[in-house]
């Protein structure tokens, strides 16, 4: 007879605390749906915001994600974790948004970087504060990283955000993006190398002086400094 642990390991979704919630949603329970929205809206919004670069659009896409969760609730099978299903919807919607953007206009992530002079918009954005960093320095760094992120391909960006924001392993990212683990390895490695190339002017490994973020050096336009400067 199969033990409980074996069953659980074969069906990891059984240990997912959101499974019961989603099963209630599948039965049409709107309160359970509201609970799921409240629980995941920030995480979904953060992903969309860094994918599309526009807060309003990110919010619309977040709402659409949850409407799809409800609309397609009967298609949910408790064989995968709820978040895998949720982020698959996010991935598909982001891809649709990307296609629609291509038709209308090019996405300019740099334009959507929150302005330090506009605290109203920034109120809703929380850059992870560092112990030593002031808010202005954080915003400046945030700008640089977002600008660098804008240079990555959409798939690289999606994989990186799922890994960094959600802490998902390669296998789960592969399931969400409907691809293989080696493909995700390659996507993430290339994304890191590209970011390393773009941010190298601002990043100095220990032992060298940290130039820090500077307005004079813009990502993608900065002079390429030698990657390895011994000293």
């Amino acid at each position, binding site marked *: 007879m199969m033990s409980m642990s074996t069953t659980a390991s074969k069906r990891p979704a059984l240990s997912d605390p959101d499974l019961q919630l989603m099963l209630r949603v599948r*039965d*049409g*329970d*709107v309160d359970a*749906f*509201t609970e799921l*929205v*409240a629980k995941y*809206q*920030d995480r979904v*919004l*953060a992903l*969309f*915001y*860094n994918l599309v670069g526009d*807060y309003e659009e990110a*919010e619309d896409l*977040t*709402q659409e994600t*949850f*409407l799809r969760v*409800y609309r397609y*609730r009967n298609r949910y099978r408790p064989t995968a974790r709820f978040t895998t299903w949720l982020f698959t919807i996010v991935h598909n919607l982001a891809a649709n948004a990307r296609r629609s953007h291509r038709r209308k206009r090019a996405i300019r992530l740099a334009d959507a970087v*929150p302005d330090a002079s506009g605290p109203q918009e920034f109120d*809703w*954005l*929380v*850059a*992870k504060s560092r112990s030593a960093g002031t808010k202005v320095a*954080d915003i400046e*760094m*945030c700008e*640089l*990283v*977002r600008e660098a*992120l804008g240079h990555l391909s959409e798939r690289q960006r999606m994989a*990186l*955000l799922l*890994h*960094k*924001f959600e802490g998902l*392993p*390669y296998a789960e990212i592969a399931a969400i993006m409907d691809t293989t683990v080696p493909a995700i*390895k390659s996507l*993430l*490695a290339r994304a*890191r*190398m590209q*970011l*390393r190339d773009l*941010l*190298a002017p601002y*990043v*100095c*490994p*220990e032992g060298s002086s940290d130039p820090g973020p500077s307005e004079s050096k813009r990502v993608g336009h900065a002079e390429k400094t*030698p*990657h*390895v400067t*011994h000293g």
Partner: protein
Amino acid sequence: MARSSTEHHGRVSPERRLSESQLALLVEYLDGELPPEERAAVAAWLERDEAARYEFELLRRVDEYVDYLPRARARPGLTERTRSLLAQSTPFSIRAPSWWLRRLTVLAALLLFGAGCALFGAALRQATAPHTEQTILRNLELLQYLPLLRELGSRERLDVILESGMFEEASRSERSDGSRGESDEVAHGPLPGSDR
């Protein structure tokens, strides 16, 4: 981890750039995606190879910088707005019916449709079918005068005779004669020479 440990023996100048596969391996190491034995091999490689160590440190710090990306937060009321959007998109019932309720709804709809069809059919039949009673009444008069009609040969001639009133007088007198005969029969029994 044969692929890296054998490749990176000895001290390498930090100016030397690592190959793409070596960098990919460092990224995997950084992400904690390597199995224990490969992880130990990379750790050993980093111990002895300065260039690898430098690249790894660079990657690690860039990775830390990614943490500066903004974590957008939902404005207050987004949950409620999403819920009301859901209500708008499902106007009849926010709570989706279960499968048996859906089947019941379909069945009820089919029954209603059937009843509607039956009512419409009946109304249509009533409107278009010939009215039997009226037709019989209309033709009753004609049936009464059928032998005369045959004799006259046309409906027009019959109508002329009927309109003249001549036939009505004759039939009235016939009726009065008949009733008188019947009363005689009642009073005196059957008349001699009659068939009855």
